[in-house]
């Protein structure tokens, strides 16, 4: 381990961000924004640096996270257990995720500098300045921690900060509602997680990740844990049956926050699944793979099908986030099913690669949508239009982002999708092949969705918004977009670099047999040829374009509408409603199915549970205890363990009951919150 970064320096971003959220309250509104933003920028750069170092040196060792040690020791006094600190470590996987986090947070922090200013006077910028670094910190901590409790704490911290950020526009009822829906569902998820983790650590007798590697479960527990973990993380990842919070929550948050949410927060679930299920616990990869890939393809198809019928730019993107997460899980699930076949390795690595890519272009797209909101104040695709000429940078980055997410070569989206598809297709596993075929369809749907976004936002005639006084977004926002856009191109053209990163990350967590290899990077050199050819083609066409405009006599004409001028109505062409109506009516059964489910399952549940939990406070005071519980429970736990150690036979009888008690306790909370959260289905 010849790393230039000692493991404790890994914590510098954390300290930095903490500093940020401590000092910003004492500053003025705008000053606090500047400070916290710049601090987060610094932190993000640090993260990127750390991740690169870590990846080059194959991970950093284990260290102690001192800050919470005090608390834990206090508890240890109370419960008479030996003092304890939380361990952090950075291995290839964490490094990869840190890289993604670093990039997205960098962009969104830069973007936030001027974007959040539109809330001056409306909302408290201090609040934002405190929450934003906290949010980053929680996510970062989540990635680096190697301890169950720290994991839970940062997980809860992330959820709650995210909640406040989503509900940032307090005046906006819709936003608050969406935020609550998110809060409840993610709370429900996390309580499942807590149960799972409690069981795990009770069995392993330690909360340290390294300790978890050794545990073995009897089948029932094994599958219970699997189910709990998948649902728990699935809610955060918004996999399809558990997705309903995302399309409401992401659009309502400030755009750079939406970028972070879609760009990274939902990816933490990906991280969690990988980390726990088969790195630590080595669960039955086949069953797990089947579940994940099935959920994945379901989300991919559902998300895109919903995306193409949206008329709200950010909702459209939110749905496509569901779809892309689906893609990622399809890759990962495939990777698990095909284990130990080398194809699985590719699929898994590609899944990770797609995580990074999606973080980049979805972040980018949300930022462009934010740009539109910033200038026109609208995200309604019916009223937008014709902004290409007045907002060239936003438009160009939107174009690149859309092409990238549609998986158009030579941009980054293509390679990861392609590398997910191939192994599944040629694996010969019928289900995976079918899934891959559907995935091709899903990517076509994505294309359609984002062409709609481009067309209605940038190209065709402006509808209700007057583009006359619209200007390009201010510099910081533009910079952020340019950063991500150029990354889309670079990571596309030099796709082997991130793919190597991903594959090394996979390589040092599970070992695939390299017996049956069809794709190696050497085989991909022809792809490079094609990409070079494409880039060349684009350059040549650029030259041609320049040449034509220079050489030919060029005439500007009004758009040809068959010779009518004065008679024309304000709204020409299609509005967002009109897009893909024919497709919808041809393949209507999909949408019909959805509405059936909604009518038969969701509505009754809502009716039945609306009387529970009317207001927001009810939930918070259901909520807070568990966050505390998460912190309190650990020493409690060790206490049980200690007892257990000393009175072994007694433990034999005692542990299960304790488990039962805690599980029951949590279950009650879960049910209560679940009923509550169902209320907010109403707002789908």
């Amino acid at each position, binding site marked *: 381990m010849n790393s230039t970064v000692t493991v404790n320096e890994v914590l510098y971003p954390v300290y930095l961000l903490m500093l940020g959220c401590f000092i910003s309250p004492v500053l003025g509104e705008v000053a606090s924004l500047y400070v916290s933003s710049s601090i987060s920028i610094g932190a993000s750069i640090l993260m990127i640096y750390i991740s690169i170092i870590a990846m080059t040196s194959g991970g950093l060792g284990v260290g102690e996270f001192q800050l919470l040690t005090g608390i834990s020791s206090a508890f240890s006094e109370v419960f008479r257990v030996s003092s304890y600190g939380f361990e952090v470590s950075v291995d290839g996987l964490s490094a990869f995720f840190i890289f993604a986090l670093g990039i997205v947070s960098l962009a969104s922090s830069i973007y936030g500098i001027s974007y959040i200013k539109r809330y001056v006077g409306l909302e408290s910028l201090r609040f934002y300045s405190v929450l934003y670094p906290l949010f980053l910190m929680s996510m970062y901590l989540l990635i680096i921690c190697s301890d169950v409790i720290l994991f839970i704490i940062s997980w809860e911290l992330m959820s709650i900060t995210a909640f406040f950020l989503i509900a940032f526009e307090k005046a906006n009822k819709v936003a608050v509602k969406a935020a609550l829906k998110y809060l409840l569902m993610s709370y429900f998820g996390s309580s499942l997680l807590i149960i799972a983790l409690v069981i795990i650590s009770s069995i392993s007798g330690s909360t340290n990740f390294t300790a978890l590697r050794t545990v073995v479960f009897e089948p029932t527990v094994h599958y219970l844990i699997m189910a709990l973990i998948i649902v728990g993380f699935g809610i955060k990842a918004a996999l399809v049956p558990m997705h309903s919070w995302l399309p409401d929550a992401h659009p309502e948050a400030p755009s750079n926050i939406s970028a972070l949410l879609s760009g990274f927060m939902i990816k933490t679930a990906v991280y969690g699944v990988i980390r726990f299920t088969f790195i630590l616990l080595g669960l039955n990869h086949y069953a797990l793979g089947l579940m994940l890939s099935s959920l994945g393809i379901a989300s991919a198809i559902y998300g895109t099908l919903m995306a193409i019928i949206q008329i709200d730019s950010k909702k459209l993107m939110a749905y496509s986030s569901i779809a892309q997460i689906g893609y990622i899980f399809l890759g990962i699930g495939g990777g698990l099913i095909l284990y130990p076949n080398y194809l699985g390795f590719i699929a898994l690595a590609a899944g990770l690669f797609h995580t990074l890519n999606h973080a980049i272009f979805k972040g980018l797209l949300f930022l462009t949508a934010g740009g539109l909101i910033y200038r026109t104040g609208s995200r309604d695709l019916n009223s937008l239009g014709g902004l290409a000429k007045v907002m060239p940078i936003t438009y160009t980055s939107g174009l690149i982002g859309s092409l990238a997410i549609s998986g158009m070569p030579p941009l980054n989206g293509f390679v990861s999708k392609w590398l997910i598809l191939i192994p599944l297709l040629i694996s010969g596993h019928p289900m995976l092949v079918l899934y891959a075929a559907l995935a091709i369809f899903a990517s076509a749907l994505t294309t359609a969705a984002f062409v709609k976004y481009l067309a209605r936002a940038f190209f065709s005639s402006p509808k209700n918004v007057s583009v006359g006084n619209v200007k390009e977004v201010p510099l910081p926002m533009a910079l952020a977009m340019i950063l991500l856009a150029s990354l889309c191109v670079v990571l596309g053209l030099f796709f082997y670099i991130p793919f190597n990163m991903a594959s090394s990350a996979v390589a040092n967590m599970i070992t695939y047999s390299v017996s049956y290899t069809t794709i190696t990077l050497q085989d991909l050199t022809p792809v490079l040829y094609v990409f070079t050819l494409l880039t060349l083609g684009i350059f040549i066409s650029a030259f041609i374009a320049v040449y034509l405009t220079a050489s030919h006599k060029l005439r500007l004409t009004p758009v040809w*509408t*068959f*010779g*009518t001028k*004065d*008679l*024309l*109505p304000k*709204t*020409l*062409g*299609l*509005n967002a*409603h*009109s897009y893909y*109506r*024919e497709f919808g009516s041809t393949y209507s059964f999909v949408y019909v199915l959805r509405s059936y489910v909604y009518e038969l399952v969701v509505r009754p549940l809502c009716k039945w549970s609306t009387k529970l939990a009317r207001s927001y406070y009810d939930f918070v005071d259901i909520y807070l205890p568990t966050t505390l519980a998460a912190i309190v429970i650990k020493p409690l736990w060790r206490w049980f363990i200690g007892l257990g150690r000393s009175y072994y036979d007694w433990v034999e009888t005692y542990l299960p009951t304790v488990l039962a008690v805690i599980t029951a306790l949590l279950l009650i909370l879960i049910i209560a919150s679940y009923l509550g959260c169902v209320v907010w289905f109403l707002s789908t």
Partner: protein
Amino acid sequence: MDVVGRILKILEGKVSNYKVINSGNVIIDVRAEDLVDVVRIITEELGGIYSVIVGNDARRVDGTFHNIYVFSLDSLKTYLLVRVRLSPEEPSVQSITSVVKGANWGEREVRDLLGINVLNHPDPRRLVLPDGWPDNVNPLRKEFNYQTRPQLNCSTQYTPIRSEDVVALPYGPYHPLLHEPEYFELHIKGETVVGVEYRGFHVHRGIEKLGESRLTYNQIPFVAERICGICGFVHNVCYCQAIEGASGIEVPERALYIRSLILEIERLHSHLLWLGVACHILGFDTGFMHAWRIREPIMNLAEALTGNRKNYGLNLVGGVRRDVSKDSVGKVIKILKNVRDEYSRFIKGLTALKEVVKRLEGSGILPKAEAVSYGVVGPVARASGLKRDVRVDHPYAAYKDVSFKVPTYSGCDNMSRLMVRVEEVYESMSIIEQLLDRLPGGPILAENAEVPEYREGFSSVEAPRGEDVHYVLTGKYSKVYRWKVRAPTYNNIPALNVMLHECPLSDAPLTIASIDPCFSCTDRLIVVDVRSGKRFKVGLKALAKGWRP
């Protein structure tokens, strides 16, 4: 006379005075205040179908303005012309659009061209006159010289009616589909049309005024022929019949037969042309080409019989100019036989194409009730289950002597409109054969065709597109006092409002074409611009220069 008796009985006490003009058409005078009731009675009890409104500045005849509302009483085989006399100073009359939707345009046109004010009209926008035409200048009033060109001032502006958040697509004035400048504004939801806004008369050239001012009786036929770009002969015949009727000229049998003959030939080539265009609109260019291939011999036939492919220039008041020779009769029979075979093969091939049939069926629905209310004519009416055909309801020329059936469909959609035309082609062929084998001898032009002053003539002809109507009031110095033309398309276009509703965008062009619109007829425009020059052959070289890049 029982027809007249019946009409008078039903309109008890409302008719101040009546007259029977040519071929048994009845013209009655009613008081302006009774008009709306009279119209209601006519439509409801006599089953009259609106045909046209003739406005007339008759101040030099009897010192009043005339508004003549013409209804076709198909059951009684007569036209009923309801005349109201209006004060010369402030001519104004109640609108009857509430009773017959079809009258909408007629009233607006009368308002525009004669300044006859129409009270509580549902849509009092300008129809004929262009934007910026000065307000109280009415071209058809006698004091308006046909050569004056008033100064345009852009105070008046045409305002389309549309709901606030409508999403619209402009069709025309210069659309690849429309071969003449017309503006349709399709209001769409997705690919479905939910409303349409029409703006026409871009090219009005005031032929009526020209006829009233400069031309003599025997010159007008040549102008009338150029009212329409395809079926000009019907106007030509219709005008001559009106004059002949007005002045009681006896047209020789043979002339009548020749007229019918040419009319049917015209119908043939017009329908085949339409079929071709329809195929093209359906994206089936092969059908387009073959339809026109089949049409070509018929054009040559017309050329051989009359001396020109399109502008036959055959009619004069009192007969025709050119006789049909023996050998050409044989030729016609021969060609027709071949065309019939080709044609039936064409139709078989066309109806075998699933996608084409699918697109035709169920698009562009025009329910029967609407059809009656709009007073649509010709194939459009027959496709909506109205069995009306001027050749049967008001026989003219030689049609009383031939037997043929009137194809009627109740599908009310584009398919039925197509099928009606398809069958009519067969009917026309048989009609032509019948005419030819009982072609009588004798002269072809009436001797001493004298036209007395101030007689009214009214005549109608079944054009390929439907009922074409001419009204004349003869005048001094062998010139008409008033000549009113109403082309079939004039009554059919307003019905597009109904047809285009809920019609897929892809089929909107087809639906517009399904009335076989002849905008130039509607606008009464001459579309001839023959730039001729000194006699020289276009050399290959000269041509090659301009032809290749």
